[in-house]
Every structure is written in C-alpha cells, then in structure tokens.
C-alpha cells in the first residue's frame, strides 16, 4: 500500500492495535506539554501540537546507552537493543535529522555505530507534516520544509477530517498493508488536500539565505565576529541537548564495589571539559572557540565530510536559548562576512 | 525503587548507617565505646574526618545515593572543636541541609547530627542505638538510592 487514509478520531485505534506488536511512541498530552511517550493502553494520542520539546533523536540515540558491564575485570557485552518500535508524529525536521544521523553513525570513518543502526533497523518512523511551523523554525531554509520526506518511513498529511498516510519506504508500505483494516483508500478530496499541503510547503519562502555560507565559513575561522557573537553566550549546553542532529557523546565508567558498567552519554561541545586534555591543555579554551565549533561543525565540517548541513531548522535552540542567542541571526551575520578578502593565514608555526 | 523491594527485604533487612565522625572527639568516643565493650548495633560504618566542618553536604547525599539507609554526622561539642570553630560553622550548614532534605521529602530521622566527646563512649553507643532504631522504623532508603544499587 502506498497511500491510505484514516479518520482522525481513529488514529488512536490504529496505534493501540500496533502497540500489541510494537512499542509505540506517540504524542500524548501531559500536564503542561504534549510529549512523545511510550503509548500505554489508557493513553489517547493527540494531534494538537506544533513540535515536541525533546526531539525523536533520543529514541534512536538515547541520552544513556549501556555498552558493557564488568565484574572483577571480566567484561560482559550489553545486548544490542532488539525492541521493534514505531514512532508516530515526529515532524519532518526531526525525521530529516535521523537521515543525517544515519550518515555519521553509518559508514563515516569506516565503522558503524551498532546501537544507533540497530535502532534504526528496529524502528519505523511515521512523520506528520506541519501545517504551520513554529515561528522560530527555519526548516525551509535548512532543507526539510514542513512536508519534507527524508528520514521517515511514512509521512502523514492532515487533510481535514482524515489523515492521509503515504509510505516512503518498503518498511512503511508493509506497515500500511499490515494495518489495512484500519485504513481506507484515499478519496479525491483527500489527495487534493495532500497536494495542496505539499505545494504550500514547496512555495514557502526560505526563512533565511544559507547559500554560499560554506565559502564564508571556510574563510572566516579567525573572524572577530565569533567573539562578538558569543559574548552573551552563557556556555550552557542547552542548544546541543535539544538539537535533533547533535550527536557528540562521552564514554565513561561507573563503578559500585567490584561491579561496574561502561556507558555512553550525551555530551556537548559547549562544555569546557569536552576537549580538555589530561595535560591541562585545551584547544577550545573559551566559549568563542566552542561556539565556533558548534556552528562550523553543523554548517561547514559536515558539509565537507558528509555533504550535508547538520541543521534541520527545527528552531529549538532559537526558542529555548536562555539569552535568545538566535542561530538564525548568527547565520545572518556570518553571511554578512566576506568570502574573499581574508587571505588564509598559512604562516602557522 | 519499587515498593516490593522494601517488603521483600524487610525480614532480613538491617539498616546501614554511615557515620561521619570527627577525628578528635566523636571518633575517639566511638573508640571508647569499643574499648569499653559497650553494646551497639553493628549497623554503622564509620568514616573518620578531620572535623565536622570538613563534611561537604554532598558526602551526606552521596552516602544516601550509594545505599546508606541513614547518615549520622557527629563532631565535638560546641566550644570543644580542635580547630576552634569548625563545628560551629558546620552546625549552620547542617541545620539548613536537614531542613532542605526534609523539604524535598527525606525524613529527618535519616540524616541526624550530634555531638559526642572523646569521653562519651556510652553516649556514642546510645546514639547508634537510637539512629538505628529510627531508621529501622522508616525502612530501607529508596528515595535517593541509585536504582542500580
């Protein structure tokens, strides 16, 4: 099945039915927020939200991953995650983020990250196209747009009273076939509404201009602008923790008596200790360098290494920065730099 | 963290108390209790510190996280501090800490403070008996304990 529809009110039934086979993550209204949570029988999914505070990244790349345990110096490898799961309702930006993470955790550097890749294999991503993105989002400029299809297995369009499911992968198609008793054939009106959403998304003007940014970043590593931009930065790691594409991590051991475990946890390039050598030397000693690293990693290094900008424009960092240090404005001021005049300093000793 | 743990273990559960004792008074008091063969429950694990003023509030919270059911801090009586005023500075800190922990939901009996001098062996034994019984009534500490502990 390529396309199918379901009444909006029936979506709970479908997801609850799927929950007997899969672990299902769906948007549920909680006290103060709509969150993506593991669906329990007494929960009703909702479609009333713009985006989640926490991106779907953590379902594939959790904040804490067990690598191994050990006792008396004998090591036991932790089993790879084997739970099959469905995540419903992620926004296209967050789905795109998964497509980007696939590249880093996939073949980059010659080895695959077994945890992430296994979860990608086990997980089915059902994205929900945005009708109206958040005002802090810049997804069109960043490349996904409100109806972007990358990274998802199924994209769902809100076509009024119904939801129109469109399979984007074989896995997605198989899912629609498996649950076809809940689904109907899309009528002409639904298809038309779907097309309108796609057209509207396509017609959206880019929120900012990222063209030629790479060249400017390449030539402005030593620009005083970095210091200017980072002056008000508090150096908290909020932007990186909330970012759906940030993937830096730490590996540490935790011990209790003779037993211990090795875990992998999220880390942030905004922290001074991130690059602090045991000798005391730190190649990124102040927030200027750390801010520059964050921006260049996303908008230059990944472009050079993977051919992708590692920003999907979800706007979380814009919305939640405690000092309103707006990435969009940072990019705009970087765009204002010249790509020519500054000759590269090659005299380094 | 679940309740079942508590019930299952209650039968053979013995409270574990971590006692931070200052070197000059309370540790000597504990020693005296031992030399005098005074009976007190074996529930206590002593950590000797130079002064009650040396105790970082984190030690106390960390002990609870690492599996202690109760924490005792004891130093010299006010006025007797080997370092003149270490215990007096500590007193304020502990007063606020105990209040604060109680505020977030840690029963006051779990974290107790006392003064024991080098001559007070019997007082030390009585103190351990008291805190052990207080903690026994509360049951195992599940609130701040590491779930993997």
């Amino acid at each position, binding site marked *: 099945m390529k396309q199918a529809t379901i009444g909006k009110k029936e979506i709970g039934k479908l997801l609850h039915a799927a929950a007997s086979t899969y672990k299902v993550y769906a948007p549920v209204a909680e006290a103060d927020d709509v969150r993506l949570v593991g669906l329990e029988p007494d929960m009703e999914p909702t479609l009333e939200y713009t985006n989640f505070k926490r991106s779907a990244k953590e379902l594939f790349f959790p904040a804490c991953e067990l690598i191994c345990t050990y006792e008396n110096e004998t090591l036991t490898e932790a089993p790879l995650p084997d739970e099959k799961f469905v995540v419903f309702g992620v926004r296209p930006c967050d789905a795109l983020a998964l497509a980007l993470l696939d590249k880093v955790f996939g073949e980059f550097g010659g080895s695959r990250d077994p945890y992430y890749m296994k979860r990608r294999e086990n997980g089915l991503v059902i994205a929900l196209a945005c009708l109206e993105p958040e005002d802090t989002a810049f997804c069109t400029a960043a490349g996904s747009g409100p109806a972007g299809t990358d990274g998802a297995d199924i994209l769902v369009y809100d076509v009024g009273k119904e939801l129109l499911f469109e399979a984007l992968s074989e896995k997605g198609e198989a899912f629609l076939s498996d649950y076809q008793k809940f689904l109907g054939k899309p009528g002409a009106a639904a298809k038309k509404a779907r097309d309108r959403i796609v057209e509207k998304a396509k017609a959206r003007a880019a929120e900012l201009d990222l063209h030629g940014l790479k060249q400017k970043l390449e030539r402005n590593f030593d620009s005083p602008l970095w210091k200017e931009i980072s002056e008000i930065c508090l150096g908290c790691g909020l932007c990186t923790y909330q970012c759906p594409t940030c993937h830096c991590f730490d590996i540490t051991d935790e011990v209790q008596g003779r037993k211990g475990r090795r875990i992998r946890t999220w880390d942030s390039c905004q922290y001074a200790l991130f690059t602090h050598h045991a000798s005391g030397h730190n190649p990124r000693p102040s927030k200027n360098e750390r801010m520059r690293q964050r921006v260049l990693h996303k908008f230059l290094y990944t472009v050079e290494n993977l051919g992708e900008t590692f920003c999907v424009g979800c706007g979380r960092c814009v919305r939640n920065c405690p000092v309103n240090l707006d990435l969009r404005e940072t990019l705009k001021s970087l765009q204002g730099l010249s790509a020519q005049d500054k000759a590269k300093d090659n005299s380094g000793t | 963290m679940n309740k079942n743990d508590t019930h299952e273990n209650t039968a053979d559960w013995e409270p574990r108390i971590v006692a931070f004792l200052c070197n000059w008074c309370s540790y000597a008091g504990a020693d005296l209790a031992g030399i005098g063969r005074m009976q007190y429950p074996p529930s206590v694990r002593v950590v000797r510190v130079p002064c009650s003023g040396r105790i970082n509030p984190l030690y106390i919270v960390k002990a609870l996280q690492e599996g202690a059911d109760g924490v005792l801090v004891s130093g010299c009586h*006010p006025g007797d501090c080997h370092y003149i005023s270490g215990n007096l500075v500590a*007193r304020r800190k502990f007063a606020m800490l105990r209040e604060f922990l109680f505020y977030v939901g840690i029963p006051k009996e779990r974290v107790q403070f006392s003064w024991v001098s080098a001559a007070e062996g019997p007082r030390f034994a009585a103190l351990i008996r008291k805190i052990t019984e207080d903690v026994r009534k509360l049951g195992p500490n599940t609130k701040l304990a590491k779930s993997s502990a």
Partner: protein
Amino acid sequence: MKDMQEKLRAAVKTLLDKHEVAFVIGYQRGSVRGRSKPCFVRTPEQADQLIWDQTCSNNLTVYLPPLFRRPRLRPGQEPPPLPRVGIVVKGCDALSVAGLVREKQVPRANIVAIGMPCQGILDPDSKQVLPSCLDCQHPVPEQADIKIDGPAREPAKDPLARAREFEAKPIEERWRYFAEQIKKCIRCYACREACPNCYCKSCFADSTNPRWIGLSSEQSDTMLYQLGRLFHQAGRCVGCNACVRACPMGVDLHTFTTKLLKDAKELFDDTPGEDTESVPLLSTFDPHDSDAFITDPDKQD
C-alpha cells in the same frame, strides 16, 4: 515604560560619553516573540538599541564575575586594570550584585548599577507575569547607583508563602513533586550557567575525580545534581530565579530556592543581597546558633 526606556538610554549615553564605564550590559529587543536579549553597549550610539520592558528577563549580573577574575600572572607581571562596567539591573538583579560583592567576586566600585523598577517578567507564551515574579519582594532596586523612575509591582506580602505552603504538604507528596521536577530535567546545566552565583571555576557536577554525579539518565544522579547545586546556594541565593527562567524543560526550581531564602531568614535572620559587608551565612557562625536539630540520645523524644 517607553519613558523609562528613554531615560535609560540617556543615562547610558551619558555614562559612555563621559567614559565613566567601559561598557554597559543591558537588554536589546529579542528575535523571538516575547523575548529580549542581553547586549553589551560600547558606544553612545549603541545605547539606542537598549530596551526596557517586561521581557527583560535575564539576570545580567551573570556576566560580571568573569570580568573581574584575576588572570594567572607571570612573575613581575602587573595585573591588568579592572574595567568599570555599567549594568542594567532589576530589583532582584541588584540583590545579585550585592551578593557578588559580599562574596568578593565583584568590586563594588567598578560597577555602575542602573536600576529599573520592575513590574514583573512576562512569560513569553502566556504573557502572564511569571509565577516566580509574583513572590518578589524587591521590585525596586534600591541599591542602584542610577535610579530610573517608573512603575513597579507591589512587593509580595509574603515572599516566602510558597515555601510555607509546600512545607505544609505531607512528606510523600513533597517527594513526589520533587521527583516529578527531576524527571523533567535533561541536565543541560542551563540553570547553573544562568545563575550569577554559579561562578565556581570548576563545578562539582563536572568533577571526574571524584565523580560526584554519574552521567547516565539515572534519576538519583539528577537529584544529586539539583540538590547539590541548590544547596550550594544556601545562604547565597537571592531569589532572582534566573535559573527558573533559563530552564527549557520547565523544572520548578522556584519552590526549592524559596525554601533556601526562608531558612536563611527564619533560622539565621539573613537575607542574601541585602548588604555587601557581611560574611556569607554559611561561611561564618554565631556561638548562639540553635542546637535544636541536634540528636541527643540521652533525651527521650
């Protein structure tokens, strides 16, 4: 409020014109609805970007301690001159200035505090005055060097009421609430970075030797972080609630900071931020401090 903004700009222009300060830390219009953004104003012309309204949320004094940190000097090297800095403060921020001066982090003579009477900060989404501002007892920065006139909130009748109410709840309910708040925390440490009092060069939360706090998503570790950070503010927290406003996850730290204020006041009659001369509460003692919480095994209770 427009009027206050004009007065502010004029005052800043004068300061910069006369070279009384190297720069002024203030607020400019933010890029997100309902938000402002800190800015460093260095020339009289730039003063026109300053704003004053109920979106001026940040406690800007967080930028002060690093400005006065002594760099490591080589033998014989003269320490660089310390800057003189202007800063826009609300009532609560002025308390922070005093707190930092009392803790010897900031030389008072190097600060020109421009005080703005405050009507309370608005939630960027709901446009309501933030709950933490409702408990404010210092809407007017009395200690400011330059006082801009304008309307201010009525000081709260009982700024500690929240702690009193919370204390009255059963212990298990309190614990549940604390645990719920902890569950929201993603340990991004925005609360720490937004706090002017969190100027430690190295934080216990980052220490690897010993490692106080595990890095996993273990709840007790998050509790340890929050308890450790909060309690490190005991007798120091002025109740500005910059931590609450910085939190992206809506963790209610306010309920807990209020308790610190309450105990400082009620147990030791200390209000951090009230003066610049006294010794911080937990760095000193009074021989007559109460022994009431001390366990006396000889006494039957």
